[in-house]
């Protein structure tokens, strides 16, 4: 059964349908989300050929361990986000359907130009979503930077085609492995820029502040969750498998990603609005994941990525709703807001503590894996920088958490009277959604093997085997 193509085709089909049946677009969106998740339970690993042209000439869709994990993460995140914030979707149902198709396509495809096409589709939907709530200036900023980035990405693809004559990712990886990496410096860097814009690496991520800083409770978790997950998974696929580079270019790319990590955390520390703190934290985390991918540590990178996106979905959903109802997300004006919403507060706390990598949460497991991985490669500077930025991260997250839970100025006892008078109401979907995700985070923190055994087979904590890539070329030249 050719289920893989259905993951892309059904959302796309329903998107066209929703243009005709405008009133039903939200329900169609829900149907597509549920069907995608349902398909994932019966999908099989392997490659699918599209259009009858055998690889490496034609386009293939690949499901191996890596892309299966990515698909699971993406579709579950997408469905959860939609379910939690159903009231905010308004007329953007068809855009979300196209986005779903594009995101799935980005992960599934095995052809680099097809990746570009899906990347553009996804970006266009991102620009439209970013402009929700009259945020046009920032969406335009995003459009300009994004188009430039994608253009450079295409330039890189063209250079690669000119050098190697193939667009199939597996074929490219074989051919690049035979060549000295000084040859592919320019195309690698162009492709890096293209993906870096979407993955929020600095200095390409100036759009993030305007877009995420003004996003509401459906756009923000999508961009910081599903979009971020997909672009980082694609980044990982390309940079750990296809464009394997040696030390001199690697050092440059690592500098960019590590600088992103450190400066992102510094910038988050200086902010006082919750959404801005969270978006800079996303930038920093993206830098960390990209560093791990470029260093070749795939499993720790994937774990850290999963931890980050699930936590961010919870955090942004809650913050988006608060900002929507109270028109502000300044911490000083929201002191003690969790006093009336304990479930939301507990979920917010669990998600933040997991981001910090504290034990009893999944973030701890991923942090330990990251550290073990880096040390096993005898790299010492990067872990030191990561630990340093963790201290800063701890400072601003704890400051945010303690102020949101407790009231009163400095020197005063924390009392109920000093609580903020802003009122927020959370729908029961939101409460159930964030609570379920938080419980999953805690469970996976205490029993991490539950997740990994189901997807990868037996993986013990301190063993950092890379997941196997099953990439087959069927047919031939």
């Amino acid at each position: 059964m050719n289920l893989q193509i259905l993951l892309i085709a059904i959302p796309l089909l329903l998107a066209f349908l929703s243009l005709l049946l405008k009133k039903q677009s939200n329900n169609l969106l829900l149907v597509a989300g549920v069907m995608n998740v349902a398909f994932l339970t019966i999908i099989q690993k392997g490659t699918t050929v599209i259009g009858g042209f055998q690889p490496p000439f034609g386009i293939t869709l690949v499901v191996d361990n890596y892309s299966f994990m990515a698909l699971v993460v993406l579709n579950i995140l997408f469905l959860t986000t939609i379910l939690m914030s159903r009231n905010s979707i308004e007329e953007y149902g068809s855009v979300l359907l196209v986005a779903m198709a594009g995101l799935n396509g980005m992960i599934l495809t095995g052809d680099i130009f097809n990746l570009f096409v899906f990347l553009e589709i996804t970006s266009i939907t991102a620009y439209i979503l970013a402009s929700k709530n009259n945020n046009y200036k920032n969406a335009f900023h995003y459009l300009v930077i994004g188009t430039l980035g994608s253009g450079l990405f295409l330039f890189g693809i063209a250079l690669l085609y000119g050098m190697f004559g193939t667009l199939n990712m597996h074929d490219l990886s074989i051919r690049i492995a035979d060549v000295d990496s000084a040859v592919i410096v320019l195309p690698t860097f162009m492709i890096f820029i293209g993906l870096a814009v979407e993955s929020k690496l600095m200095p390409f991520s100036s759009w993030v502040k305007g877009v995420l800083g003004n996003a509401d409770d459906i756009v923000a978790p999508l961009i910081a969750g599903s979009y971020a997950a997909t672009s980082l998974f694609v980044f990982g696929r390309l940079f750990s498998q296809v464009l394997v580079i040696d030390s001199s270019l690697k050092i440059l790319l690592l500098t960019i990603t590590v600088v992103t990590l450190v400066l992102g955390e510094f910038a988050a520390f200086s902010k006082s609005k919750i959404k801005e703190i969270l978006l800079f934290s996303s930038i920093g985390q993206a830098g960390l994941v990209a560093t791990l991918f470029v260093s070749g540590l795939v499993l720790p990178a994937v774990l850290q990525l999963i931890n980050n996106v699930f936590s961010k979905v919870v955090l942004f959903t809650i913050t988006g709703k608060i900002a929507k109802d109270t028109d502000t997300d300044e911490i000083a004006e929201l002191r003690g807001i969790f006093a009336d919403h304990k479930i939301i507060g507990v979920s917010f706390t669990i998600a933040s503590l997991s981001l910090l990598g504290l034990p009893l949460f999944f973030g701890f497991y991923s942090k330990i894996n990251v550290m073990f991985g880096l040390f096993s490669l005898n790299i010492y500077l990067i872990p030191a920088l990561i630990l340093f930025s963790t201290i800063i991260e701890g400072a601003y997250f704890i400051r945010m958490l303690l102020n949101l839970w407790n009231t009163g100025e400095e020197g005063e006892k924390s009392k109920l009277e000093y609580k903020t008078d802003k009122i927020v109401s959370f729908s029961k979907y939101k409460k159930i959604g964030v609570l379920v995700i938080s419980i999953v985070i805690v469970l996976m923190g205490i029993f991490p093997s539950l997740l990994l055994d189901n997807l990868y087979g037996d993986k013990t904590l301190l063993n950092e085997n890379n997941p196997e890539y099953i990439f087959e070329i069927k047919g031939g030249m």
Partner: protein
Amino acid sequence: MIQYFSIILMLIGIFGLLIDRNILKLIVSLNVFEIGLNLFIVSIGFVNNGIAPILTANNSSSNLNFVDPLPQALVLTSIVIGLGITSLGLAFARKIYKEYNTFDLNEMGGNN
């Protein structure tokens, strides 16, 4: 030759993005950049003394010296994508004008 020309076009486009403050001019610069990019891609497929990759009555064998058709297909896709982006950008420009009454980014004010 063509390749150098297309790279110069791309650089002109990027230069425009750096200098311009008017939103419409930014969109135009993006388009110039894309044109340069598309030209470059087509030029990659060029083969010396090649003919157009179409099977006609005169050229019916597939062993002849064809220019590479794959980049031409890529460029078609890319042109369409560029069209989509330009139209979206213009839609945004219109909305921005409605809100700020100007197309100049500097007049629109600072960070929000």
